[in-house]
């Protein structure tokens, strides 16, 4: 470890200790209520309060770095602990740094590293990427569309549908899909590679003349808005598709305006990245209501929404357990009497579909808007 890195490491350990001290001041345990990691591991070390204590013990030299492994990898990085914390001590803020420590020590599991390497080498963490969606789109435009690897791997029709909606609104976007946003690289603690990848995305966007980037995936949107600007210059504005659609001029109806859709009762799940980390909570609701559906609310919603189980690489490290979290959400939607469980994140909807096993229809909100 170089001298600079050693100083940074020391500083990070001191911060972990301060955070644990703040946490123990209140001992409120608000963070436990809705923590996905605690749902999977009901022992104290599975919740943010316990994780703070374990991290503090490591900082004091009472534990080895390997002892942090499960505690750090079982975190969905959903951020609800920070939202609920009285003492500004949510473990969410510490997890990326600790994953960097684990990466430097060669302790990150191979499945997470493999996913991150595919994102860097192939431009997607998934085995395949359907790029046919962008045929016929201009090489250069002031507006770009970044569908995200998850959409292209699991639901490429959503990208085609989104482009059709944009074109109906008079926007013909340039396709931005050469590189992955790098979320899996960030989650695996590969800080240097994440920085390089951000630079490559910025270069692609600059080359295509894009000033305004429209996205489908909340995970990518969070990376582009909150994470990449910390490591690279990103000279464009990023807008999630629901923000774009909900911001149509007054008097101009939303695409698929009220009455044209089928109606019915819709439970809307706020993706962590969209609702909590980007504060986009009302726009999707505005669209659902404009489409004429009855909106049903989960108990934990908006900025305090519950994680679907797919965040932070949890679905990669613990695929079965992460589906239990998705099933919780499905069961709550069924209990509310919803006809469909709707979200605006492909990670969430894919997970819900697997967990629901046909018990309820699971949809991306944008798919519900008729062309």
């Amino acid at each position, binding site marked *: 470890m170089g001298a600079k890195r050693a100083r940074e490491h020391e500083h990070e350990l001191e911060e972990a200790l301060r955070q644990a001290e703040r946490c123990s001041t209140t001992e*409120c345990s608000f963070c436990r209520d809705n923590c996905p990691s605690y749902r*999977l591991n009901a022992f104290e070390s599975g919740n943010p309060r316990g994780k703070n204590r374990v991290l503090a013990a490591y900082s004091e030299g009472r*534990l080895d770095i390997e002892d942090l492994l499960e505690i750090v990898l079982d975190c969905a990085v959903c951020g609800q602990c920070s939202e*609920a914390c009285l003492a500004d001590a949510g473990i969410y803020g510490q997890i990326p740094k600790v994953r960097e420590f684990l990466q430097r020590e060669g302790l990150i599991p191979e499945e997470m590293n493999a996913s991150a390497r595919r994102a860097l080498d192939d431009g997607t963490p998934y085995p395949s990427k359907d790029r046919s969606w962008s045929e016929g789109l201009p090489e250069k435009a002031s507006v770009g569309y970044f569908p995200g690897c998850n959409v292209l791997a699991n639901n490429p029709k959503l990208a085609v549908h989104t482009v059709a909606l944009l074109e109906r609104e008079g926007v013909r976007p340039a396709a931005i899909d050469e590189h992955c946003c790098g979320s899996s690289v960030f989650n695996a603690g590969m800080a240097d590679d994440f920085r390089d990848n951000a630079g490559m995305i910025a270069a692609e966007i600059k080359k295509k003349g894009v000033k305004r980037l429209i996205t489908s995936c909340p995970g990518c949107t969070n990376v582009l808005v909150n994470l990449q600007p910390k490591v690279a210059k990103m000279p464009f504005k990023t807008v999630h598709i629901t923000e774009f659609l909900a911001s149509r001029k007054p008097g101009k109806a939303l695409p698929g305006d009220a009455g044209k859709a089928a109606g019915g009762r819709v439970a809307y799940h706020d993706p962590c990245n969209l609702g909590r980390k980007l504060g986009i909570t009302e726009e999707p609701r505005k669209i659902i209501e404009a489409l004429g559906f009855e909106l049903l609310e989960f108990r934990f919603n908006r900025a305090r929404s519950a994680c679907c189980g797919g965040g932070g690489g949890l679905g990669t490290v613990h695929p079965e357990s992460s589906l239990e979290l998705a099933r919780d959400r499905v069961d709550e939607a069924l209990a509310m009497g919803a006809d469909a469980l709707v979200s605006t994140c492909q990670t969430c909807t894919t997970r819900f579909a697997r967990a629901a096993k046909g018990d309820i229809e699971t949809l991306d909100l944008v798919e519900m808007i008729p062309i």
Partner: protein
Amino acid sequence: MMRRIDDIIIRRAGAPDMDAVSRVIASAFDDKIVAIGGQKRAGRVVPIIVGSMRGEKFIAVTGGEVVGAIIVTTEEIDPVDGNVLKVVKVLGLFGALKAWRVARSYTRSTPKRLEKEGVLEAVGVMEDHRGQGVGGLLVRRAEARLKNLGMKTFGLGVKENSEAVRFYERLGFEVVTKYHNRLGDWLYMRKRI
């Protein structure tokens, strides 16, 4: 060989007992040990967690071996109506204001404890010694300590439909409310002491 309950000594846990307390509490969470990273890693992490838990700790000892442990707490700091000065001291004025804002707006699943209410945080009995009344002795000892500390009630959360509900009912606890969190459906039980 089945031991008689008279052989069990309940005493306060001191610093040298913390490893034993951790071992016993961990035994109650055996099915969760895999999630902590297996027995070896749990052997290091669990003592950290148990050691950092504040509150009164008692152990059940028989034949020189610690076979049961209980942890109860008497204090919960709440920025809304709790020890405001202490919160300000550690979090600063700005941090305390933020804490107050979150506490005001957050609807926690777990029922709020009453003033002067002790709460059972964890109790465990080693598998070979279950069904012999050790848990009951530990709960009664903790209850006596809470009473001495001026507590008026003793509360605890327990999974709905679990065998433990009957156990606590036999000890005089009554269900006061139901609640739900990501671990499932729970009952909050309380007794006047």
